[in-house]
C-alpha cells in the first residue's frame, strides 16, 4: 500500500498543482509533497514490505537502496524551489510545478518497476515530462537544449524499447509464456537464448546508457544541464540518471543469471572508464561552470558503471556512490544556479570574483567541488575508495589505476575553473549591469543541507543504509 | 553447315530487326503527343542514306576515329550472339560467357569514347566524361543483375542463366534492368535522344564529328544495343528456356515490343532529369539489382 502511495502521492499533488489557482502559493505544494514522500520512503527503508510474487512493481531491495535518496533529493530541491520560483515570479510556474511532481511520481514508479515493460514506460514518460522543465527559461538556448535532449533522449529510449523486445524474445524463445517480470526472467536463467540476450544487452545498455549519460551518448547532458534551472539539473543528475542506472542494474541481473556475467562486466567497465576519460578531458577545457557540472555528472556515471562491473562489493559501493554523488551534486547545482543568477553569465571570461558578489553560494560551491572531487571527509571520497578497493579485490589493477588517473584530471579541470570564477575581481561590465542578488536563506539553506547530508554520509554512514546497499548487491549478484 | 546456317540466320535477325525498335519508340511518342510522327522504318532510310555518303574527316584525327565505331559495332554484334534465344540456346556458349558479355559491352563503349576523344574537341571530351561517369554506375548495376542470375541458376553461362525465370526477385530485377536499359541507351530520363547541340546531352555530343558510314555504324550499333538490352531484360524475367522454340520466339518478340512501348511511354511522360539527380536514379537501379541479388541469395532459406 505504501509503495503505491509513493507513486500516487506525487501524481495527486501534480493534479492539485495543475488545478491550483494561485501562482504565488502553488510552489508550496512542492515541499509538502516532498516531505510526505520522504517520510514514506524512509518508513519503507526502515520497515521494508514483503514483495508479492509476480508483482509488476514493488519496494524490492534495490528500490530500497536508492529510492530514499531520490526522495531526499527532491525534498531539499523542493525547499529551494519555493524560493527560486519566488525570485522567478515573472514566469508562469503551473507547468513547471506539475511536471516536477509528475517526474517524482514517475521516478518512484521506475525505481520500483519489477517488469521490463513497465520500467520502459516509466522511463519514457520521465523523458517526456522533463522537456517542459528544460525550457522553463524560455530562451533560445533553452529551446535548443530541450530539442537536443528530446532527440538524443528519444532515440536512446527507443533503443531501450528495442532492447526490451529483444530480451522479451530471448525469454519467449527460451520457452517462457511471456512473463516479463525481472524475477521470472532471472528464474529462467540460462534458458534465455544467448544471441538474443547479447543483442538485448547491447541495445539496453546503449538505450539506458543514453538516459544515464555514459559517453559517447552523453551529448545531450552539457546542453540540458547548462540551460536548465539549477534544481532541475540537480534532479536530472541525481534522479533521472539514477533511474537509468537502476534499469541497467536490473537488466544486468537478468543477463548475469543467464551466464553473461563476464560480458556485462567487460562492457560496463569499458563504458565506465571511457566516460570518465571523456569527462576528464572536457573538464580540462570547458569554460562554462554549469556545463562543467554536466561533465562531472558524466564522470560520475562512469564511476557508477565501473563500480557495477566490479562484483558484489563493487555494486554495493556503486549504490553508496549513487547517494553521495546525488546529494553532493544537489549542493553544486543549487549553488551554481545562485552564482549564475548573480553573475548573469556562466563562462569564465564573463564571470569572476564571485566570492565578493555572492559570498555564501561561492563558498558552498567551492566546498561542493572539493566534496565531489572526493576530498575527505565527504561521502564521495568513501564511496570512490570502496569502488577502488573492489577493483583491487577483483584484480582489476589496470581499471583501478585508470580510474585514479581520471579522477586526478577531473580534479585539475574542475578546480581550475572554479577558482577562476570565484577568485579575482568582479568584471567591470557585470558590476555595472548585474542585478544585485540577495542571498536569502531560501536559496542558501538547501545547498547547505545537501553538503551536510554528504558530510554525514561520509563521517557516519548509517548502518541501515549500509545494510540496504549490501542486501541489494546480494540480490543483484548472489555470491555463490 | 547447320551451325553456320544458324549463326547466319541469327545474325541476319539481329542486324535487320534492330533498327525497328527506335522506330516503334518514336511512333509511340508521336501517338502519345497526338502527332503522326516519322515512319517506323525511318532509321533504315537514315542508315541507307548515311552509308552512301562520303566521310568527312578532321585533319587532327588518327585512324582510331574511323576504326572505333567499327570495332564497337563488331563488339556489340558479338555480345548479341552470346545471348540465347529460348530453348535454342546461344550460337556460341561456354562457361563464363556472361563475363565476356559484360566486357564486350564495355569494350564497345571504350571504342566509341576513344573515337570521340580522338577529335581533340573539348565539347566531345565533356560528353565522354559524362558518358563514362554514368557508365561506372550502370555497369555496377548490370554486373549485379548478372550476379543475381548466377546465384539463382548456379551457373555462369548465359544460356543456362537466362533460361529460367529470375524467381522471387524478378520484379526487382526487371525494374533495375529497365533503369540500366534507359541509362545505357541514353533515353529519357538520363539523356534525351532528341536534343542536338545542347550542353545537356551525353551520347549525341560524342558522335558529333562522325559522318557517313562510321556514323551509320554508330547509329546501327546503338539500335542493336537497345534491342540487346530489351532481349536481356525479357529473358532474365521470363522463363523462356522452358517453352518450345516457337512459343519462345513469340513471347520474346511480344515482350520486346512491350519494352519498346514502355520506353516510348516513359519518354513521353517523364522529363529529363537534372544532371545532379542522375546518379541517384542510377544508384536506385543498382539497388534494385542488389536487392534482387539479396532475394536470390536469401530466398532459398525463406
Amino acid at each position, binding site marked *: 500500500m505504501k509503495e503505491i502511495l509513493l507513486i500516487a502521492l506525487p501524481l495527486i499533488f501534480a493534479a492539485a498543482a495543475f488545478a491550483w489557482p494561485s501562482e504565488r502559493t502553488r510552489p508550496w505544494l512542492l515541499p509538502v509533497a516532498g516531505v510526505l514522500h520522504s517520510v514514506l520512503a524512509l518508513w519503507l527503508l526502515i520497515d521494508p514490505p514483503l514483495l508479492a510474487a509476480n508483482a509488476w512493481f514493488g519496494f524490492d531491495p534495490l528500490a530500497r537502496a536508492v529510492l530514499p535518496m531520490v526522495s531526499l533529493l527532491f525534498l531539499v530541491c523542493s525547499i529551494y524551489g519555493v524560493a527560486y520560483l519566488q525570485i522567478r515570479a515573472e514566469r508562469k510556474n503551473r507547468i513547471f510545478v506539475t511536471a516536477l511532481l509528475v517526474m517524482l511520481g514517475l521516478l518512484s514508479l521506475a525505481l520500483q518497476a519489477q517488469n521490463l515493460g513497465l520500467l520502459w514506460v516509466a522511463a519514457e514518460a520521465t523523458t517526456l515530462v522533463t522537456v517542459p522543465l528544460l525550457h522553463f527559461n524560455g530562451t533560445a538556448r533553452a529551446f535548443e537544449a530541450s530539442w537536443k535532449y528530446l532527440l538524443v533522449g528519444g532515440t536512446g529510449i527507443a533503443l531501450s524499447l528495442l532492447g526490451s523486445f529483444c530480451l522479451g524474445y530471448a525469454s519467449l524463445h527460451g520457452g517462457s509464456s511471456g512473463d516479463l517480470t525481472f524475477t521470472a526472467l532471472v528464474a529462467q536463467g540460462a534458458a534465455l537464448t544467448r544471441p538474443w540476450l547479447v543483442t538485448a544487452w547491447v541495445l539496453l545498455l546503449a538505450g539506458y546508457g543514453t538516459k544515464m549519460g555514459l559517453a559517447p551518448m552523453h551529448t545531450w547532458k552539457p546542453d540540458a544541464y547548462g540551460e536548465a534551472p539549477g534544481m532541475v539539473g540537480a534532479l536530472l543528475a541525481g534522479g533521472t540518471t539514477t533511474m537509468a542506472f537502476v534499469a541497467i542494474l536490473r537488466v544486468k541481473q537478468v543477463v548475469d543469471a543467464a551466464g553473461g556475467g563476464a560480458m556485462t562486466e567487460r562492457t560496463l567497465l569499458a563504458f565506465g572508464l571511457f566516460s570518465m576519460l571523456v569527462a576528464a578531458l572536457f573538464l580540462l577545457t570547458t569554460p562554462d561552470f554549469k556545463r562543467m557540472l554536466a561533465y562531472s555528472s558524466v564522470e560520475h556515471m562512469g564511476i557508477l558503471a565501473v563500480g557495477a562491473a566490479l562484483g558484489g562489493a563493487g555494486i554495493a559501493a556503486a549504490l553508496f556512490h549513487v547517494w553521495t554523488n546525488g546529494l553532493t551534486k544537489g549542493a553544486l547545482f543549487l549553488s551554481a544556479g545562485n552564482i549564475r543568477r548573480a553573475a548573469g553569465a556562466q563562462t569564465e571570461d564573463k564571470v569572476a570574483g564571485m566570492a565578493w558578489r555572492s559570498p555564501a553560494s561561492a563558498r558552498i560551491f567551492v566546498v561542493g567541488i572539493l566534496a565531489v572531487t572526493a576530498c575527505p571527509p565527504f561521502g564521495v571520497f568513501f564511496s570512490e575508495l570502496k569502488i577502488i578497493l573492489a577493483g583491487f579485490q577483483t584484480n582489476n589493477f589496470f581499471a583501478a589505476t585508470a580510474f585514479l588517473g581520471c579522477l586526478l584530471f577531473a580534479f585539475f579541470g574542475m578546480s581550475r575553473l572554479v577558482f577562476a570564477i570565484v577568485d579575482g575581481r568582479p568584471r567591470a561590465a557585470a558590476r555595472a549591469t548585474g542585478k544585485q542578488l540577495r542571498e536569502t536563506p531560501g536559496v542558501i539553506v538547501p545547498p547547505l543541507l545537501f553538503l551536510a547530508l554528504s558530510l554525514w554520509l561520509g563521517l557516519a554512514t548509517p548502518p541501515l543504509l549500509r545494510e540496504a546497499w549490501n542486501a541489494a548487491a546480494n540480490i543483484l549478484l548472489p555470491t555463490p | 553447315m547447320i551451325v553456320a546456317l544458324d549463326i547466319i540466320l541469327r545474325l541476319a535477325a539481329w542486324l535487320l530487326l534492330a533498327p525497328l525498335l527506335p522506330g516503334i519508340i518514336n511512333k509511340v511518342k508521336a501517338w502519345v503527343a497526338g502527332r503522326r510522327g516519322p515512319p517506323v522504318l525511318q532509321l533504315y532510310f537514315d542508315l541507307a542514306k548515311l552509308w552512301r555518303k562520303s566521310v568527312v574527316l578532321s585533319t587532327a584525327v588518327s585512324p582510331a576515329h574511323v576504326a572505333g565505331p567499327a570495332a564497337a559495332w563488331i563488339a556489340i554484334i558479338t555480345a548479341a550472339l552470346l545471348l540465347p534465344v529460348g530453348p535454342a540456346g546461344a550460337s556460341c556458349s561456354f562457361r563464363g560467357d556472361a563475363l565476356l558479355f559484360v566486357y564486350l559491352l564495355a569494350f564497345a563503349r571504350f571504342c566509341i569514347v576513344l573515337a570521340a576523344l580522338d577529335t581533340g574537341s573539348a565539347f566531345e571530351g565533356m560528353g565522354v566524361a559524362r558518358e563514362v561517369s554514368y557508365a561506372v554506375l550502370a555497369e555496377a548495376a548490370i554486373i549485379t543483375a548478372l550476379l543475381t542470375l548466377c546465384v539463382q541458376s548456379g551457373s555462369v553461362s548465359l544460356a543456362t542463366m537466362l533460361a529460367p525465370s529470375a524467381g522471387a526477385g524478378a520484379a526487382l530485377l526487371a525494374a533495375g534492368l529497365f533503369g540500366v536499359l534507359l541509362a545505357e541507351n541514353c533515353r529519357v530520363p538520363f539523356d534525351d535522344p532528341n536534343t542536338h547541340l545542347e550542353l545537356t546531352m551525353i551520347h549525341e555530343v560524342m558522335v558529333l564529328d562522325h559522318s557517313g558510314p562510321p556514323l551509320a555504324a554508330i547509329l546501327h550499333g546503338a539500335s542493336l544495343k537497345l534491342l540487346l538490352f530489351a532481349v536481356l531484360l525479357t529473358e532474365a524475367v521470363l522463363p523462356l528456356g522452358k517453352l518450345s522454340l516457337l512459343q519462345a520466339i513469340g513471347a520474346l518478340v511480344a515482350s520486346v515490343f512491350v519494352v519498346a512501348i514502355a520506353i516510348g511511354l516513359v519518354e513521353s511522360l517523364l522529363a529529363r532529369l537534372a544532371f545532379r539527380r542522375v546518379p541517384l536514379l542510377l*544508384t536506385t537501379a543498382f539497388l534494385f539489382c542488389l536487392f534482387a541479388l539479396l532475394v536470390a541469395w536469401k530466398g532459398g532459406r525463406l
Partner: protein
Amino acid sequence: MSGTMNLLIGLAMGFSLLALASSRLPSVIRAAAFQGMILGTLPLLLEEKFHWLVVAVAIGTITVKGFIIPNLLRRALRAANIDREVEPLIGFVPSLLLGAAAIIGAAALGSELPLRPEHAKTLLVPGSFATVVCGFILLMARTKAISQVCGYLILENGIYLFGLLLINTTPLLVEAGILLDLTVAVFVIGIIVDRIQREFDTLDTRKLTSLRE
C-alpha cells in the same frame, strides 16, 4: 500468409529507402506515412483468427502512423512556412547506399539470430533492424527538424515491426507503450518545432549551435 507479409515488409523497407532518397520534405513525410500504414496492417496478417482487439490495434496504428502524425507534420510544415527542400548533411546517394548496406547487414544478422518456428519464415527481424538503422541515418544525416522527426518516426516503425514478434504473448502493454510514445513524442516535438520556428525563423537545426565547447 508469410509470403504476403514478407512482401509488405519488403515494401516497408523500400519506403525507408525512398525517404532517404527524397529531396522534398512532403515526400519524406509521405514515405514515413505509407510505411506506417503498411506496418499497421501487419497484425491482421499475423493473427490467424479474427480478434477484435487485433483489429482495433491495426486500425489505431494505421490512423496514428498513417494519418494523424503525417498531418501534424504537414501542418507544422505549412504553419512554419518552411522551404520544402531537404538539406542533407550526407548526400542522397551515400545515404541511399548506407541504407542498402543496412538492409543487407540486417538480413545477414537476421539469419544469425534464432527464431521460433512460427516466425522463422518471416522477414520481421531483418525488416525491423533495417528500418531502425534507416531511421537512424535519416535522423543524423538531415539538417531540417521535420526530416529528423521523420527519421525518428521510421526508427519507431522499425521497433514496432519487432514488437509484432511479441504481440501474441505479451499483453498489449508493449503496444500501448509504443502508441503513447509515438503520439506524445511527436506531439512534443511538434510543439518544439513550432517554438523553434518562432525563435529562429528557420527549421534548420544547423543553426542550433550556440551550445558547444
